[in-house]
């Protein structure tokens, strides 16, 4: 009589297993909810960073636009002055050959002025002072390709960071959504285990153990896939 009272009755079979699975489920839910919260926070931070870099790159583009506008304005003025000096010097020679000495003097003064202005332009422009861009010879043109690469480098770097932050936001946002989906499905397992506890037929209870356990296992492996994905 003592032995039979220690054995689980037919109606009590699988209740302990259900209880164990339910406890396991609660631990799983705690971990999942923490992961979901963490993913959500990371998505928020990545979204913030993406917006910050968008603002920064916009500012940098504005600055590089102002800088290149100024530099090209000075370059254009310098080249114009150089050309004027060349043309006026030719004019001086022609006038001297034709015996127009007074006119040649005027043209010489104008040529000197153009040359002086070209020298000012070379002093004021990074395109003529920076060793990375300045012309290799006196009459050559600056290295505009390298200049354009340099002037846009910081803006491009900001845009690259902004793209990386936006990608991170999409990744963590998707993970957060996936964890939320898994949490929704795992709550069904809670329901299954609860119903399993309430039924009296042990075979039906076993059925609920299988169904609830399957849902738990699927959600577990899905969570692992989301975690390492």
């Amino acid at each position, binding site marked *: 009589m003592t032995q039979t009272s220690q054995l689980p009755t037919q109606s009590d079979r699988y209740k302990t297993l259900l209880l164990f699975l339910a406890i396991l489920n*609660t631990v799983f839910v705690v971990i999942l909810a923490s992961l979901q919260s963490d993913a959500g926070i990371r998505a*928020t931070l990545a979204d913030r960073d993406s*917006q910050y870099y968008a603002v920064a790159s916009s500012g940098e583009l504005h600055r590089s636009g*102002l800088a290149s506008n100024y530099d090209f*304005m000075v370059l254009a003025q310098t080249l114009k002055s150089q050309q004027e000096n060349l043309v006026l010097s030719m004019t001086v020679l022609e006038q001297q050959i034709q015996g127009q000495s007074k006119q040649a003097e005027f043209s010489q003064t104008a040529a000197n002025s153009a040359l002086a202005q070209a*020298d000012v*332009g070379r*002093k004021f422009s990074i395109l003529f002072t920076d060793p990375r861009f300045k012309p290799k010879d006196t009459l050559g043109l600056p290295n505009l390709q390298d200049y354009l690469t340099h002037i846009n480098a910081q803006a491009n770097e900001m845009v690259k960071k902004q793209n990386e932050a936006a990608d991170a936001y999409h990744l963590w946002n998707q993970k957060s959504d996936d964890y939320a989906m898994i949490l929704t499905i795992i709550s069904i397992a809670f329901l299954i285990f609860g119903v399993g506890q309430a039924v009296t037929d042990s075979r039906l209870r076993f059925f609920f153990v299988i169904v609830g356990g399957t849902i738990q296992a699927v959600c577990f492996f899905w969570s692992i896939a989301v975690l390492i994905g």
Partner: protein
Amino acid sequence: MGFNKFFTGKLELITAILIALVSFATALTVYLTNTAGSTANGNNHQGMITAIKLEAFSNENWRKTYQDASSAFSYALALENVRVLKSSPDAGERAQAANFEKYLLPNLKQMADPFTGSQKYLKQDGSINLQALFTDLQNTPEIKGLDPQQYFDLAEIAYAEQRWLLVGSILMAISLFWLTVSQIASNRKIMTFFTGCFFFLVGMLWVIIYLLQQGGVS
């Protein structure tokens, strides 16, 4: 044996008291979690506003710098022209130079200020130092007080607190679940009761660690 009998008899009462206590603790933890989250979002928001303000100031100061640089360049060109005209053998051109120097150059010089007003913004070769002017324009109390990173750092601290407290909230909620199951179940009462107590104790410990780090509830 006497204790077991006493405990089993009073289990429902003890569970009911615990449910009330856990409910209160859960509500408090959820409040702290939401406060941390709200603080984090507020700091993020403030950080973004500060970043946009800083960028707006920088944009305007760069615009002013390059505007003054263009004026300085125009002044330098006019100055060289006057210098050449002054050394001309022609009296007419020298007269032009005198008038330019008297009437035109002062206005151009004023427009080119501060590049023409201070040696600080000139390089040794006579060219202008744009970075020096921009740095000085940025060096105002209003702009120096704008630091988005400090708000972002505060936001990250608050998010870390929110993460911590959320786990505590979930542990409390799980504890509430198991205590309720213990109250309404017809069997396995003691097992579910102690499961609920376990999660409650872990949750309380979780929140107490947070409070100790904060130095009390703020």
